[in-house]
């Protein structure tokens, strides 16, 4: 037997421990085969067995070599608690159990001398979520009747594009009492108020990306919900660029400009305009950090789409050459507006920050009226890969920041002119309709969501340290991996179906919230419809406090 030294890693240092019942195990090997992290392996143990063979109890002991499943004690191949072993075990013989005594955050740093990286969301759970202290509390009754969510029609659309101040609308009255214009106005697309947020084709497996694209097309073509998906930074398959489905896609450009050479080359062959362009300046999960795609995920097709070799792909933390907001407005927006001949709205995505309102003010006052949306991403947003310290400790919650931006617009009488889109942990409890609705009442035109989409497809990661291995390329659900064997675990049709069904359910639920407040169009900025059970939240957001 080997000697165990004090500083050797043991299973008890790891975040998850495997509970294994040898008496139930038939040694089928399914768990070992399924564990993409190689966190368990078979081994042979010497075991003592007590038995009695005669008519009367005559206990005897015997030693024998027994094959068992054993947890690996490594800080690289450690159990993520994904539960795949439990899922495939026919005999309920194995499952991961959260280890409250884990020393993982310490030993990993001590042994690795490197920062911890992972995917997922912020994993520091402490207090109640702000949105859960808020209720839809202004119910229409009596003289102001509620609507019937099943019977009435509801306008569930949000603008993507720059909206002119009313006095700048180039319309004038004609003699026959109509309005006419000779000028062009900025492009605005009215879309579903929930955008499938920017997850790149490198971060997701091609099958997952395909599932999202399929779900988007189905929602549009079959269900009548004009849902848009954002490509994320990293390009788009050329086949999609040249197809009619491009109109459902918002193309993203971020500081790495990955994939844009393909997009530019495909422009002459596009049969439809994209739904929009989203310039990503920052991301809520890791503000101040650029994108990070580990080499193990840079598969052949990713190299082709992005035009890069197999290497760690890091987007710079900021757009090189942009030193001021004015400059970003002029350079980026104008060039992208011009690239699509001013037919495609261009918006900006930033990480929520103490300074977001200043940035927003600068954009909303821009006299050229070209910024077509302000996407604010809060600290609870997800990511495919980031340093854990950024994930857990940098960023700004979305709720008050979104409200601040809306109220800043109100102060200037410019609400709605740059549509506000919010994200960052929305739908974290599984109920996106409620979160979206509350954010809309607080001033958002719509919301965007990424992590929840993965969860719809089968991601078992959560914010209590479960899985979050999206950066490793070993996603046990086939979602954030480029390994063919793993990617094939995901059935794109089923994943797409789940996403479609979730949207249909959410659509009903949003109407179920609009009906009691008596509104048939989205109650953007109707903070009077909300009440808060927490005094501090109520004061901060300027809504009614109730108890």
């Amino acid at each position, binding site marked *: 037997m080997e000697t165990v030294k004090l500083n050797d890693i043991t299973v008890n240092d790891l975040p998850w421990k495997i509970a294994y019942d040898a008496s139930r195990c038939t040694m089928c090997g399914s768990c070992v085969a399924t564990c993409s992290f190689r966190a368990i392996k078979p081994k042979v143990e010497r075991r003592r067995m007590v038995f009695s063979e005669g008519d009367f109890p005559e206990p005897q002991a015997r030693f024998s070599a027994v094959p068992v499943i054993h947890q690996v004690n490594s800080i690289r191949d450690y159990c993520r608690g994904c539960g795949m072993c439990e899922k495939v075990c026919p005999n309920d013989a194995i499952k991961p159990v959260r280890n409250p005594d884990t020393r993982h955050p310490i030993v990993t740093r001590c042994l690795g001398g490197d920062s911890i990286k992972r995917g997922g969301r912020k994993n520091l759970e402490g207090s109640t979520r702000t949105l859960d202290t808020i209720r839809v509390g202004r119910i*229409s009754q009596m*003289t*102001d*009747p509620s*609507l019937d969510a099943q019977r*009435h*029609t509801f*306008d569930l*659309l949000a*603008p993507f594009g720059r*909206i*002119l*101040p*009313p*006095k700048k*609308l180039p*319309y*004038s*009255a004609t003699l026959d*009492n*109509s*309005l006419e*214009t000779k000028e062009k*106005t900025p492009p*605005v697309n*009215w879309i579903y108020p929930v955008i499938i947020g920017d997850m790149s084709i490198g971060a997701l497996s091609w099958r997952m990306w395909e599932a999202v694209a399929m779900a988007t097309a189905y929602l549009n073509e079959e269900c009548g919900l004009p849902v848009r998906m954002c490509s994320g930074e990293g390009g788009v398959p050329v086949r999609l660029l040249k197809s009619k489905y491009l109109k459902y896609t918002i193309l993203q450009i971020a500081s790495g400009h990955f994939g844009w050479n393909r997009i530019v080359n495909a422009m002459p062959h596009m049969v439809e305009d994209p739904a929009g362009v989203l310039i990503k300046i920052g991301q809520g999960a890791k503000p101040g950090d650029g994108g990070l795609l580990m080499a193990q995920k840079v598969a052949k097709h990713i190299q082709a789409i992005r035009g890069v070799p197999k290497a760690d792909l890091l987007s710079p933390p900021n757009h090189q050459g942009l030193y001021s907001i004015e400059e970003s407005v002029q350079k980026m927006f104008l060039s992208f507006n011009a690239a699509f001949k001013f037919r495609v709205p261009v918006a900006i995505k930033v990480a929520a920050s103490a300074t977001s309102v200043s940035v927003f003010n600068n954009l909303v006052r821009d006299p050229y009226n070209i910024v077509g949306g302000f996407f604010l991403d809060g600290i609870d947003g997800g990511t495919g890969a980031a340093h854990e310290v950024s994930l857990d400790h940098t960023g700004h919650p979305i709720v008050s920041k979104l409200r601040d931006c809306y109220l800043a617009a*109100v*102060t*200037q*009488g410019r*609400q*709605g*002119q740059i549509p506000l889109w919010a994200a960052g942990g929305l739908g974290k409890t599984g109920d996106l309709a409620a979160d979206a609705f509350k954010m809309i009442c607080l001033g958002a035109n719509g919301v965007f969501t990424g992590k929840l989409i993965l969860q719809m497809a089968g991601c078992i990661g959560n914010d209590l340290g479960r899985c979050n291995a999206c950066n490793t390329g070993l996603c046990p659900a086939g979602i954030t991996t480029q390994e063919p064997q793993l990617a094939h675990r995901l059935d794109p049709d089923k994943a797409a179906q789940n996403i479609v069904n979730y949207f249909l359910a959410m659509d009903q639920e949003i109407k179920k919230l609009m009906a009691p*407040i*008596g*509104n*048939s*169009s989205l*109650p*953007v*900025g*109707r*903070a*009077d419809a909300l009440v808060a059970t927490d005094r501090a939240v109520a004061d901060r957001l300027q809504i009614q406090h109730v108890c």
Partner: protein
Amino acid sequence: MCRIGAIKSLDYVHPSRALRLMQSQQKGHDNSGFAMVMQNLGGIFESYKHLPTLSMACTDKGIKIAENILHEIGFRRILQWSPEVNDWPGLDINAMPHYVFETFNYPPQYENARRKEREELLLNTRLKLRAALEEDEEGFVYSFWPDVITLKEIGDPHDIGTYFNLWEADSRFTAKVITAQCRQNTNYDIVRYAAHPFHLQGYTALANGENTFYLKNKEFQQRLHRGYIGFESDSQCFLYTLHYVHRELGWPLNYYKHVVTPLPFEEIEKRDDQKQLLAIRQSLAHLEINGPNTIIGMLPDNTLFTCCDAKKLRPVVIGRDERTVVITSEVCGINEILPERNWEDDIYPNERETIVVTDDLEVQRWKQ
């Protein structure tokens, strides 16, 4: 619930008719107040149509404050009229000490000014008066505009009529358009400014209903124009939107309906003017109203109109004879004052209509 009414006639009409119109709908409101705006004035005001008339309720001190301000600006009073009041015991009225209706000559420097400049002066003056009288509630300035008189009081409409001696018709105090409403604003505080009809620069609006987009409207309107103040009632938003769309943007009246109750997107897509309608849904999204409503509006050129919320959750009916058109919440009001009319000509507008009564009494039905 409020009850609203409007009478538009080719002849001068005394407010007693408006009182009778509203009295018969008494069961539908809560008898908490009465307010009216008269436009296109007859009687003693007929020969001063081009000059601004101040409608104000105030204390002794209030009169002095107001007169000083007006004098300072250069307005010269040429007519003053106060209704004779019957201050009988037992009347349910919460009256201010004075009701004054005073007509002024423009300040000398404005004699030859353009109309627009004069109109801005009148608004600025009214806002100044209102601000000066607001402290200690020395007075309430309801309107300061040519050919317009406003009266608002808290109490039982019947008693208010008795107090101001409005039940007895005479030819001294008349107008060709009268809009009236019974009820104070019981949703919020009872304050005199909260009673509609509201008036701003020749535009009048009154409404029966609730505006659940009040906060959205208010937050947007308060930055749009210096005259959009108060917001004591959610119905003020209807007036400000009317003023903004018709006067500030200079758009034809038919677009008012498109602003307050825009068509659903799927219907907009089918229209030739979809670009305009989408622009409205975009740039004027915060002027949309929601909730049940009937609005009656009056334009500076005496055009009267009515429209409803997009689900038609509040009643309104239009009845007429040769010389008079009446718009009101309940048909019993029209039966009271136009009993001989052909009721088969009554119009019950639908949720997508605007009914417009032109100055020569032509009734038009506009489809949104």
